[in-house]
């Protein structure tokens, strides 16, 4: 436990924390104020005494002498002192550490006892709030009401506790030199700024003092409230800081307490706590669409995973991984164009049935029906396209979404699809796969148009996802052993079959838009993913060329592969700690050669290599 506390106290920023300055600065000031020399003890120490002193007030009088009830108070004080006493003599710290250790065993028990006591006591409290901002007051009020206490709107004798943000006047009987420590150092400035001048006799705090009413600083109450709210405290040291953090989260006014640094940190993360929480802070990214957000429960580290997908019209079109229609051997999360082809063919066949039925009735109606399945085309494609966007990008693909919206007006969904709609893709797709090969009735242009679109999409989803993104993605026509060149050739074959007819089966502007969308990665990919992205784009560029250039390339391609032309291999050298664009070039660089030839870099490895020498055969 102490081991966990220690690092907190040793947080380097603690030395420079505004809190520390505050202590020193305001401490001096308060001393000057009161005409004390301020030479005796460091202010920090005084505060410690003040706090523990202050806290004894909270202790059940019956148990004041017993160790267990005070353990927690001491613990609190000790914990705070540890934070404060950076400049304290080391012996002092050692002492606190020892006490902490000694008390550790009693801590949990002490906290529970303390909690029990105050849960009982709170209903008897009549609280008067002095000089509290309205929002804090309303929030604190809610908390005390929950614990059974009540608020007195006007100061009177019936009040048992005054909660204030102002300086607390000295206790009448006390003549202790530590007394000035009772002034809440953090709020001296507050007092100076207070609009209401302190006039003795009429001031509520002074009167409360005279009446023997307890006067608590707001932060003290907040500390108590948070501790009371916390269930059984698991680890006192930690729970103190945690609950204080929590209290600070509830309290809009930053209390200059030991955890100011943590408060500030939290504010950085979640924004100031006194703002309207329903309105996002300016420097925050709010997850608006379909998101996944995995973050640290104590907000101490950056989120481990954040991704915000744009909301699709249907969830099947979503870009996040989900079960897809796939055939055997295929990854169930990657769209399977062959499977899709089956489905589309089936649709086309049905459309044919319908068409035939309609044709029997009237001739004019048939032309309308021809147009209907054709209108399905962009929808299928736009869904296909979502696969491409699965390549990791830092930000959501808004440009893509816009291109989508512009290029692929969503046609009304045909009603015959509704059977699979409401269901999970898992089961919808399984049904499709169970239906087997679709019936084909007559080779009408409508159906062929569908097929073309699917071949195109086959190139895209298959080759982009399996070569560039997933080398391990299987393909019926794409084996793991295929070299780059072979797959490139295969792709070209597919491309030829696909791109030519697709040009007249759909408006070319659509294709261009889509290509533009695919290649239009405005956000530079993260450095690490860059290379992969380049590979992806490398595949796409060819695909994205307009027809004439692509055909030229096709003629050149076989020739170009003949000469030995190594692609520069980019990477990172761990030894030079340098990124490079060309592996071979880097290895010849002066820096790398220097490393390679420096014997001292290899001493350790060489020692092992001598052990690894191959044993010679014993000559008989």
């Amino acid at each position, binding site marked *: 436990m102490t081991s966990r506390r220690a690092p907190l106290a040793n947080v380097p920023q603690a030395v420079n924390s505004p809190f520390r300055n505050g202590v020193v600065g305001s401490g001096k000031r308060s001393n000057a104020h009161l005409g004390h020399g301020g030479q005796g003890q460091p202010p920090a120490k005084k505060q410690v005494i003040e706090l523990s002193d202050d806290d004894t007030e909270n202790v059940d009088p019956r148990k004041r002498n017993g160790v267990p009830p005070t353990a927690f108070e001491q613990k609190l004080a000790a914990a705070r002192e540890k934070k404060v006493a950076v400049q304290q003599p080391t012996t002092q710290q050692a002492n606190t550490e020892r006490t902490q250790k000694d008390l550790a065993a009693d801590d949990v028990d002490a906290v529970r006892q303390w909690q029990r006591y105050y849960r009982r006591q709170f209903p008897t409290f009549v609280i008067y709030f002095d000089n509290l901002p309205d929002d804090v007051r309303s929030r604190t009020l809610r908390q005390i009401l929950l614990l059974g206490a009540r608020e007195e709107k006007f100061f009177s004798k019936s009040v048992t506790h005054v909660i204030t943000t102002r300086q607390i006047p000295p206790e009448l009987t006390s003549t202790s030199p530590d007394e000035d420590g009772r002034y809440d150092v953090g709020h001296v400035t507050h007092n100076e700024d207070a609009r209401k001048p302190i006039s003795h006799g009429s001031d509520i705090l002074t009167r409360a003092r005279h009446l023997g009413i307890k006067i608590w600083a707001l932060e003290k109450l907040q500390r108590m409230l948070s501790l009371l709210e916390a269930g059984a405290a*698991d680890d006192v040291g930690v729970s103190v800081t945690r609950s204080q953090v929590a209290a600070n989260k509830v309290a809009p006014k930053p209390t200059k307490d030991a955890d100011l640094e943590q408060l500030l940190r939290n504010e950085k993360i979640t924004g100031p706590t006194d703002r309207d929480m329903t309105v996002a802070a300016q420097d925050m990214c709010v997850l608006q669409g379909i998101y*996944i957000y995995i973050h640290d429960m104590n907000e101490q580290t950056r989120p481990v995973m954040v991704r915000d997908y744009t909301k699709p019209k249907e969830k099947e079109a979503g870009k*996040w991984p989900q079960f897809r229609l796939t055939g055997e*051997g295929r990854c169930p999360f990657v769209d399977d164009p062959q499977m899709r082809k089956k489905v589309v063919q089936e649709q086309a066949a049905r459309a044919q049935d319908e068409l035939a039925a309609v044709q029997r009735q009237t001739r004019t109606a048939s032309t309308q029906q021809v147009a209907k399945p054709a209108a399905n085309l962009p929808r299928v494609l736009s869904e296909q396209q979502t696969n491409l966007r699965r390549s990791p990008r830092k930000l959501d693909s808004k440009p893509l979404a816009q291109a989508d919206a512009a290029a692929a007006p969503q046609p009304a969904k045909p009603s015959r699809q509704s059977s699979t709609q409401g269901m999970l893709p898992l089961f919808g797709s399984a049904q499709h796969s169970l239906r087997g090969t679709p019936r084909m009735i007559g080779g009408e242009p409508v159906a062929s148009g569908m097929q073309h679109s699917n071949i195109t999409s086959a190139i895209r989803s298959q080759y982009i996802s399996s070569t560039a993104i997933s080398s391990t993605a299987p393909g019926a026509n794409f084996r793991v052993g295929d070299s780059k060149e072979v797959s490139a050739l295969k792709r070209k074959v597919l491309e030829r079959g696909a791109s030519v007819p697709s040009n007249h089966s759909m408006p070319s502007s659509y294709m261009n838009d889509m290509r533009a969308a695919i290649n239009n990665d405005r956000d530079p990919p993260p450095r690490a993913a860059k290379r992969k992205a380049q590979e992806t784009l490398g595949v796409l560029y060819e695909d994205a060329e307009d027809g004439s250039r692509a055909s030229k390339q096709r003629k050149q391609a076989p020739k170009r592969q003949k000469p030995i032309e190594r692609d520069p291999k980019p990477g990172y050298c761990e030894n030079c700690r340098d990124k490079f664009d060309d592996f071979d070039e880097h290895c010849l660089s002066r820096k790398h050669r220097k490393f390679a030839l420096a014997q001292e870099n290899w001493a350790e490895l060489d020692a092992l290599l001598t052990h690894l020498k191959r044993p010679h055969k014993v000559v008989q």
Partner: protein
Amino acid sequence: MLVHEDDVKRGDSTEVETDELEESMGPLEESGGTVSEGDGEMDDLVADDIARFEASFKNITQRYRLINRIGEGTFSTVYKAEDLLYDHYQNDWDLEANKENRDSDSSAVKQSLVRQQKPRYVAIKKIYVTSSPLRILNELELLHDLRSSPNVCPLITAFRHQDQVIAILPYFQHKDFRDYYRDFSMDEIRDYLRNLFSAVKSVHDADIIHRDIKPTNFLYSPSQRHGVLVDFGLAEREGTDYHHCQCCYEQEERARKVQSSVYARKLDAARTSNVPLPKPSYPKDDQRPSRRANRAGTRGFRAPEVLLKCTAQSCLIDIWSCGIILLTFLSKRFPFFHSADDIDAFIELSCIFGKQKMKQVAFLHGQILQTNIPSMTETGHSWEKIILWCTGRNKKSAEGPGEGLSEDEKEAINFMRACLNLHPGNRISAEECLEHPYLNRTESGSTTVAA
């Protein structure tokens, strides 16, 4: 030409984080490299590559005759080569030759004649010069430690010339995973797994985490029913960079921590003040440190604790990867997970396990999962359902869970479930795997007495 160029990616993280830089420096890349058999005709590029390698490494041609390039990974290239000086050395590593010696009745003279006629092959692993000596040392040292493990590919020897280090490994005849994973019978799957888990056990017994178990790193020969684990490039000793993680606590302790977390308090505060919780948001310019943990491994095979950057990872991450291999067999899908990155990987797992369990696993590592992905169900799907669906056997009117699966399959699924436990603490160990009734069974179906 059977060169598989695995995608070489360094630090694939797309998370909003800064540890990408460190990651690409560290051993956190995907490693790959398929060693496929067969000589075939050599590509010009490969010939050129080999020629340059031979020229750059002093005296290598005296010892080895390079035949082909058989694998390329993130950190290395593997070549098939003839071991020219085979007969000069003791070759305890050569199990095949040992067997020959034992089986053969012929005289020693005859044997050596046979040997001369029969070329001896080795695999030469050329570790890229951009790898740090420390990384190379680590790999070779671990391999050396594991030299007596029957299912781990032994290290014959290693050489260095300036910055170039090469490791000489036995050339192991095997078949490409894709050629058999869909056709394996339940007994063949069992044989495969027995080999795999005995390799994993010996690695774990030495307190080593392999970190990159996947079919391409387990060379298996179905005809010999023997397989070896290769590529220890990402392996590490258990406990390296170990830091306390929430998952180290006992359950009650952890529950308490979760309850007293900042997030829980935020929820409480919102509840008590009757304010709806705002949409989740995160700082644009996040100054907080990012959570750092070793995430080395291959996408689709990473255990949930690796995805969640658990800082107290153990050998059990390897068991998860083995479970994924079994899933591949049972579902007849390879790869089963696409997992373009860790976020996708996490979502894919969520599709199966459901939101509830994934939230729990996030809690386990001190994290909060918030998501509104519509295709993610609360409770997920059972493995039985998924296997049936993947193999196209689910009917509209399935009578009950697991209906339509053979007894063998049900047992395999139970075993797989034990390997794919989201909580590493509840995951089965390699030793327990080998004792599990599923693996401990003969082909006739009766359970063998453990030797």
